[in-house]
């Protein structure tokens, strides 16, 4: 390790910094995690999305706290308070559109981050717990986004809340008492809105906590990399700062460009017009759909004719990710060296997109049939294909080190040198 550690920056010799660092080693910690933290030198742009997700979490918390200063969690005032934010509050429209579309950008970043993990086998030993923490973050995000969507108290808010809370009524015996407990009444009403606001404020901070654990787990064994073999020595690594801080910042610029384009030019593109109609408990809109990031799971729910099994399948489709590290029996991490898995990976990605498309359409006719097939494929992929592939697939030969493919045959003398010392 001593070899890789970069020299301490000059400011660490400042007496003030030294005084603080002796009492609270914050500078040593930052230096260690950012500067010294040795990172594989071959990370590609798919490795940007973790930090992008983290930045979106901060954006959501900052914009959310400001929104909460103007928002009123009461059934009689909620809708109008959001309209007031849009029309009267200084820059209110901007902050709300940032928060509204920021949720979508957050999910885009996290979904790409997850599929990156699926492609490169990031969930395999020794990163199983890191993977679990990621799934927990996903579940918390879904809960947070669902709760937030209820707050503006439009028609979709109200009926989305009704349908999702009613999912729990599928459980025999305990189902109905649970739903009444969730509502604090006999329908989605003021007590429900109040507690949803309280929890919507709380959960993002719980996510921050889990993200910290996620990073601790990450830094324990370090980042994976596109070739999926372990780093063999200092010649395979570079310090995180400045190399990846710069690469992450460049990615952030591109990502924010897309984000800004949506916020300023198509802020309601991803939303449902029905949510600009105030909630009406006596009338269901003809077509209820959740936000786009929940559509694949909604499709799984609806493709199964039994209420209880539908609910179990929907939750199961996420929980199955927890046992993925053991369902995938292949020792090779990266799909680059798994020719057959690579095909199934893309099929699985298409399957998820198909499920999302089905979730946005009514469950009738062909949609129902396609939805059922896509649901079956989703589970087949995890439960049958992945375990079998590990046995039957013949992986391509792995490179002997990260440097080898990067430097086309490991010819570079400069890069190989430190290895001889190590």
């Amino acid at each position, binding site marked *: 390790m001593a070899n890789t550690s970069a020299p301490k920056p000059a400011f660490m010799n400042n007496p003030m910094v030294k005084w603080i660092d002796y009492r609270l080693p914050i500078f040593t910690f930052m230096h260690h995690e950012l500067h010294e933290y040795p990172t594989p030198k071959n990370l590609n742009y798919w490795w940007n999305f973790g930090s992008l997700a983290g930045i979106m979490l901060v954006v959501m918390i900052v914009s959310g706290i400001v929104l909460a200063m103007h928002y009123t969690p009461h059934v009689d005032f909620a809708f109008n308070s959001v309209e007031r934010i849009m029309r009267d509050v200084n820059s209110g429209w901007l902050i709300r559109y940032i928060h509204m579309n920021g949720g979508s950008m957050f999910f885009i970043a996290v979904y790409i981050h997850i599929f990156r993990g699926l492609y490169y086998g990031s969930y395999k030993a020794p990163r199983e717990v890191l993977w679990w923490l990621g799934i927990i973050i996903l579940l918390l995000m879904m809960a947070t986004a669902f709760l937030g969507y209820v707050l503006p108290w439009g028609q979709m808010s109200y009926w989305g809340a*009704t*349908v999702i809370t009613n999912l729990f*009524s599928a459980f025999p015996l305990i189902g109905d008492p649970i739903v009444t407990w969730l509502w*604090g009444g006999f*329908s989605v009403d003021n007590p429900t809105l109040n507690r949803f606001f309280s929890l919507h404020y709380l959960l993002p901070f719980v996510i921050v906590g889990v993200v910290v654990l996620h990073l601790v787990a990450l830094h324990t064994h370090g980042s994976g990399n596109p070739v999926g073999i372990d780093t063999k020595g200092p010649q395979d690594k570079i310090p995180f700062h400045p190399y990846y801080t710069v690469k992450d910042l460049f990615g952030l610029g591109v990502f924010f460009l897309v984000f800004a384009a949506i916020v300023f030019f198509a802020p309601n593109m991803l939303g449902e017009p029905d949510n600009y109609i105030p909630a009406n408990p*006596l009338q269901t809109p003809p077509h*209820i759909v959740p936000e786009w990031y929940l559509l694949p799971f909604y499709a799984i729910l609806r493709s199964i004719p*039994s209420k209880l099994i539908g609910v179990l399948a929907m939750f199961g489709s996420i929980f199955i990710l927890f046992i993925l590290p053991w369902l995938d029996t292949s020792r090779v991490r990266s799909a680059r060296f798994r020719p057959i898995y690579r095909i199934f990976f893309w099929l699985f990605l298409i399957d998820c997109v198909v499920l999302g498309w089905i979730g946005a359409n009514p469950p*009738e006719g062909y949609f129902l049939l396609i939805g059922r097939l896509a649901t079956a494929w989703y589970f087949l992929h995890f439960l049958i294909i992945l375990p079998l592939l590990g046995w039957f697939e013949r992986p391509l030969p792995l490179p002997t080190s990260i440097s080898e493919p990067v430097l086309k045959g490991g010819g570079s003398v400069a890069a190989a040198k430190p290895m001889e010392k190590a």
Partner: protein
Amino acid sequence: MAQSAVTHAAGGGHGAEGTRRDFLYIAAGAFGAVGTALALWPFINSMNPSADVLALSSVEVDLTPMQLGQRITVAWRGKPVFIDRRTPEQIARAQADNTADLPDPQTDKARVKKPEWLIMVGVCTHLGCVPLGQKATDPRGDFGGWFCPCHGSHYDTSGRIRKGPAPKNLPIPEYAFLDDNKVRIG
């Protein structure tokens, strides 16, 4: 360090039956766990419906203006209640279907106080949408009753589930006829 070494030695000395100290650990732990659970309960229970929500609200509805074959919706406890003044054909159809293949078997008689007046909570037993069919122009499903557009549940002229993902019939609230033209729900 020395102390823990002693404890270990003492623990080991007594073999598999366990020591007094083990017993104390378990007893204290169990007390702590039960105590924490009891302390948690008020917090969980505070989320159940409060006294004012529970205070049984009821609504009285004047039925005089209702035509034969007309359906109206009234709000009760924040939910829609369907009142249907059924035509003789609708009643006959509901009764004829008593013997049909019902997912949640119930006779029409068990669902009404007076056959002409079908009164139900208009909340789909699948995931809680309000089924269509109250307006004459609404789709009423394959059985002439109500149709829930959310996930496609069909209810018959007695409000019984016949087709689709909903597991149960539309529920019947508590109600009483105060006189021939007045009903109190709740």
